[in-house]
């Protein structure tokens, strides 16, 4: 419980990165950690880049994660993974990224300039990259919007928060009618990252 955890969540407004950051904070608090989280509101519903920092441990002062100190950078989109990759702790930080591209809508010529080589670039940088097809998995489960919770399930296998705290956070925070789908998405994410690790 003494270890300080620094997590960075990145995504595009509307993908629900703020929600999974919040679920992580709730689970960490339930597990007995001190927790702080910071986010920037206002653009979250308008397709802008969204970043949320979550820190937990014995005693937390700053809510801000410093670049180079994140244990995990969780990105729901590849360009956003690139944008925040420098937050990962050199050598041991993990970049957990949804294998999914969203072209920025309000930038001229974005379609031609989008960095489709993001994954290769991060691997060349010797970063620990785990890519998951979470959006595809979410569609298989019947709802494209729950890719965020698939990724959260994956995250849960990488950090020290007990299973019952995750379950409690999901039940407390999500509307009952969406709970089943989200629990399935969470479980699917856990399995996906285990398979990925087994393959490595």
């Amino acid at each position, binding site marked *: 419980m003494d270890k300080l955890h620094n997590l960075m969540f990145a995504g595009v407004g509307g993908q629900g990165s703020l929600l999974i950051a919040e679920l992580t904070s709730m689970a960490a*608090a339930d597990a007995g950690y001190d*927790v*702080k989280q*910071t986010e920037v509101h206002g653009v979250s519903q308008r397709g802008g880049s969204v970043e949320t920092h979550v820190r937990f441990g014995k005693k937390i002062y*700053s809510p*801000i994660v410093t*670049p180079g100190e994140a244990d995990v950078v969780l990105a729901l989109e590849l360009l956003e993974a690139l*944008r925040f990759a*420098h937050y990962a702790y050199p050598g041991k930080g993990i970049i957990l990224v949804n294998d999914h591209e969203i072209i920025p809508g309000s930038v*001229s010529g974005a379609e031609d300039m989008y960095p489709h080589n993001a994954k290769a670039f991060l691997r060349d940088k010797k970063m620990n990259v785990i890519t998951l097809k979470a959006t595809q998995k979410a569609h298989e489960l019947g709802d494209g919007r729950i890719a965020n919770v698939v990724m959260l399930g994956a995250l849960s296998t990488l950090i020290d928060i007990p299973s019952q705290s995750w379950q409690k956070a999901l039940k407390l925070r999500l509307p009952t009618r969406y709970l089943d789908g989200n629990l399935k998405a969470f479980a699917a994410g856990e399995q996906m990252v285990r398979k990925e690790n087994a393959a490595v």
Partner: protein
Amino acid sequence: MSELLLGNQAIARGAWEAGVTFASGYPGTPSTEIIETLAARYPETNPRWSANEKVAFEEGMGAAIGGLRVLVTMKHVGLNVAADAFMVFPYAGTNGGFVVISADDPGMHSSQNEQDNRYLARMGKVSVLEPSEAQECRDFVIEAFKLSEQFNAPIMLRTTTRLAHHKGLVEVGQREEVPQREFIPDPKRFSVPIYRHLRRPIVEQTIEALRDYAETSPLNRIENSDNSIGVVTSGISYQYVKEVLPEAGVLRLGMSNPLPPKLLKDFCSRYETVYVIEEGEPFIEEYMRSIGISNLIGKELFGVIGEYSPGRLREALEISKVPTPFTEEITILPRPPMMCVGCGHRTVFATLRQLKTIVAGDIGCYTMGALPPYEAEHTTFAMGASIGTAVGLERAGQDRVIAIIGDATFIHAGIPPLIDAVYNGSKLTLVILDNSATGMTGAQPHPAAGKNALGEDAPKLDLVKLVEATGVEMVEVVDTWQRKDVRRVISKALAHDGPAVVIAQGPCQQLPDMKRRDFLPFVVEEELCTQCDACFKVWCPAITRTEHGFPIINTAECTACTVCAQVCPPEAIRLAEKPFAVKL
């Protein structure tokens, strides 16, 4: 019991516990969630959205004089609007506790300027408390009410974006019901202009009494005083100092106005050099220098512009270097926010772009009209400024000027300039984007929306009648999603010989009723599509391209606004027969 709360939620919680029975505000990032939380969880605080910050402040001032405990909320620039009353209230002093939240935005995450409102407080002789984390947001609000009633003084609680929008664990308590104080009519106190000379010395007495209090207040405290490094800090910077210099001797100022000269001198005399670490302007630093403390390092090392962070302090203090983004090695495209799928503003900006007008814009989502693909907004300054700016541009010889303003902003600060435009004979062309919401801050209701902060039905301001009453002869309402009508009516207004107002109507897609409604989305019939790409020029984020080059509409995002169907020459875009899942 502890709860994970946003800074703003913790402020709301503190206000509720402190027995607040009246709360008013105007939406503005990063302050909005305070009134929203009061409305959702603590309706006994009687929260309301007011027409603007000046009105919110004055309603609160009246309620406090009348003996209630009052919370008033606004963002930093909102206090500029309320400044007229803010500067004079201390002359009378309050009766019931009065706390105004000024939510400043260092880094300008969602604001047009950086503005450190501690200076406004100094000018107005108002005491300022600065919490540093969510727990203190709750605690300091409760303390602020006690101080306010002890000194009969309005108190400012200053937050910043990181503080307002961070979450932390907060130990909460129960509500204390505070009896209403008696209101004793006393013109010698409350009719300030007549009795100003009588009141002026009292302003000084009050602030000096608060300065004496600051010398020994538990809000200002010294930690690790035996260490060799000394730091004076306030607000969230205190948390960064604890992180970066955990062993340093710290004078943490929870009350940053008025400042305690003896305490500051005493603390600084223990060290060879003292760092002053405060986000924003050198407010504390300048005061310290003004009372003769010179062994200071402050803004020359840490800077004035933007937010502080632990990384920034580490770099300034040469403790460590912080990695930067990989922008040198790979294209990291920016991703600015954009108008929502189905936003009614799109058709208006498409028209303005085609008409090649000069557009004086205003504050709201529609500032994004200045961005690609529209690039059809040429000035934006402050709430309500579109109309006055357009009048001035026209006077300076520009002949195709349009002012554009949202409905909430029009109500907030657009009515006097419209009256003035008509009165002084301007040929103003004004488009009011009427989406029944204060959109940018999350679709809060306003007087023309027919709802109040609690979601109850409220009298609905009639914008057409209001505009007509100013003497404007041409007032036309148009469905904002009918692109041909929008173009026709705006063109007509431009050609009109005299002031003309177009009200482009259509609800904000972020309104709960819009999100909840049942509708069928639109789909593309590939057999009919000629790949002419006309639909892409609508710039709807829900339209993307299949690998075969056809447009495809994300049916989960489509709002059935019909605009893409209107522009499709072969009529290949039609209503779906049933809702269906998005294709990958």
